[in-house]
């Protein structure tokens, strides 16, 4: 039976933290732990979720949890999983929650190592598309055009000039047992992917879009809406990689207005018509490939 609002675990495992109003990342952690339950060990690197959840003596996880070194989410997960197994524990989940910088930049080596070893862990990247905890600096997953504090938008350069690193396909290229993309906007889809991952042996990678109202420049009550719209307008997609095959989970007949998605956010408000055309052209090219190869 798939997970839905009705049968979801009523217990809270990430509670009383100091995340900002409308935080998409904390929602991803909260929802995933409701799926994985109390026999989970959560590993979180330096970043938003560890900064808001682990301030002694106010410790916010009611399951076992630990902060890892920034580059060490995956390697600490490996050690924790092996250690717990050696300790004689069975039926537990070792789950990591790292941000986009912690995953695609500083943590990519350790993540690649863990997938290569096929360690029995779940790695969840909550992607808010910049280093939000330190004040909105560009990461390898900041999208093309976005204004951050290290990619200012001015006369000469209009924000970040590079597209997002494709972490989902990088994970898949390791021939990982399971990888998926998700968004907190379609939270049931995300939770069911976590549930699916929890039943597969080996390394699992889930990449979930988790808007940061502060960094994105949207009202705090728009998190879910903007996290849906990113999929609906085709700038993100819901897909899975399993048994060596890609599957597209959602194939909208018609995209909603990408320009509207972009311009509702402060980080994209400076974009010109030409910039938006670049984004839409790249989106269409990607979807042409996806629709051809992943169906």
């Amino acid at each position, binding site marked *: 039976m798939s997970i839905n609002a009705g049968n979801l675990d009523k217990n809270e495992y990430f509670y009383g933290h100091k995340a900002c109003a409308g935080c998409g990342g904390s929602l991803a952690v909260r929802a995933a732990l409701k799926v994985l339950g109390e026999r989970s060990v959560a590993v979180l690197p330096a970043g938003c979720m560890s900064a808001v959840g*682990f301030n*002694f003596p106010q410790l916010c996880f009611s399951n*076992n949890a630990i902060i890892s*070194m920034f580059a*060490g989410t995956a*390697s600490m997960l490996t*050690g924790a999983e*092996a*250690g717990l197994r050696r300790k004689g524990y069975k039926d537990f989940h070792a789950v990591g929650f790292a941000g986009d910088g912690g995953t695609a930049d500083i943590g990519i080596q*350790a993540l690649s190592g863990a997938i290569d070893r096929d360690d029995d862990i779940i790695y969840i990247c909550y992607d808010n598309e910049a280093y939000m905890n330190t004040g909105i600096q560009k990461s390898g997953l900041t999208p093309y055009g976005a204004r951050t504090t290290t990619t200012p938008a001015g006369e000469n350069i209009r924000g970040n000039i590079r597209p997002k690193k494709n972490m989902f396909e990088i994970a898949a290229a390791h021939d990982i047992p399971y990888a998926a993309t998700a968004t907190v906007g379609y939270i049931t889809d995300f939770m069911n992917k976590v549930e699916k991952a929890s039943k597969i042996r080996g390394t699992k990678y889930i990449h979930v879009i988790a808007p940061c109202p502060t960094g994105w420049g949207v009202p705090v009550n728009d998190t879910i809406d903007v996290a849906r719209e990113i999929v609906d307008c085709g700038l993100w997609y819901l897909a899975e990689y399993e048994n060596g095959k890609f599957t597209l989970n959602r194939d909208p007949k018609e995209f909603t207005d990408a320009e509207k998605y972009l311009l509702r956010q402060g980080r994209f408000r400076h974009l010109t018509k030409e910039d938006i055309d670049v984004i839409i052209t790249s989106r269409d090219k990607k979807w042409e490939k996806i629709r051809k190869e992943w169906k």
Partner: protein
Amino acid sequence: MNKYLSGDEAFAEGVRLACPDVISAYPITPQTVVVEKLSEMVENGSLDAEFIHVESEHSALSCAIGASAAGVRTFTATSSQGLLYMAEGLVYASGGRFPVVMMNANRATALPWNIYGDQRDSLALLDTGWIQAYAENAQEALDLALMSFYIAEHKDVSTPFMANLDGFVLTHTYENVEIPSQEQAKEFLPPYETENRFDFEHPKNMAFSAGPETNYIFKYKEHKAFDRAVNVIEQAEKRFAEIFGRKYSGLVDAYLTDDADFVIITLGTAAGLCRTVADELRSDGIKAGVLRIRYMRPFPVKEIAEHLKNAKAAAVLEKDISFGYAGTVYINTAAAFQSGGITAKLSNFIGGLGGRDISADDIRDIYKKLQNGTEGVEFIGIGGDN
């Protein structure tokens, strides 16, 4: 059972006898033999452990910390650049009170690149909150491997342990080594028990943040653990002697220091040649002595004062330099002289960098300079042209 083993092999035998649950390591010369031997032991079933092939030293220590947080015995090994790459993890392991044991093959640090032995790698990381021991021979390496787990994991200590072996001179030099039985090792080393671990019955949040109000309390406790480590080291060696019959002398290993006028203080393998030269000088009527420091942390403040109280002059001979000042061992020793009220003049000789040989003549020369009066920092063998 006796075997002809290199320092690396002997240390691996000690680790096997300690039965770690998780070993995570990345290869680097001259540490490689340790991880190769441990891999062989896992393969042939003489060691029941998870050997995790991590993709870097940073991950090796991160993985070991994760396993230690699960409450199991952990081991890693590295050297030089690898140790420096782990540096962030060193303070992480000690701050979290995770008693990871690591063997470090002392090797020069780049640049210029150099694979041979000196002690700049570990001494540069003296302040990372690890117990630091330095072995002199292969037997001591094996014995230290066993004792390191006892000391690190002791509930009064809960502090990671770095056992240092001089690169090549010790790691790759063969000696006759007595390997204790597994039964004896079991008798010596109790299983690792801790509350500092994940627990599904009583879940824990670990490796957290602590602000200005509480941070210093954690640091104070970390510091106090080193005071208790002094007693635990003594206790471990006493127990070791009872079970295995081999005696060790705590934080230092003194040779003829009781009545010595001139003493060389050093670490690791250099001590052997110093003793030979001291014997030679003694036959000429010169009262020479040697003090080998076995533990740089906790530092043998009291022991140094005790052994140097009758000396006229002393030199620290070491394979490292803290640029802009002096050798790290000298700096530490000078502070112990001051606090211990030692009036002997203390000078500093830097040698063996990048694996350069320290000869008996070099040591004779140091003793001669001590007799004639010397001070400051001198690089052994440096010519006027340099």
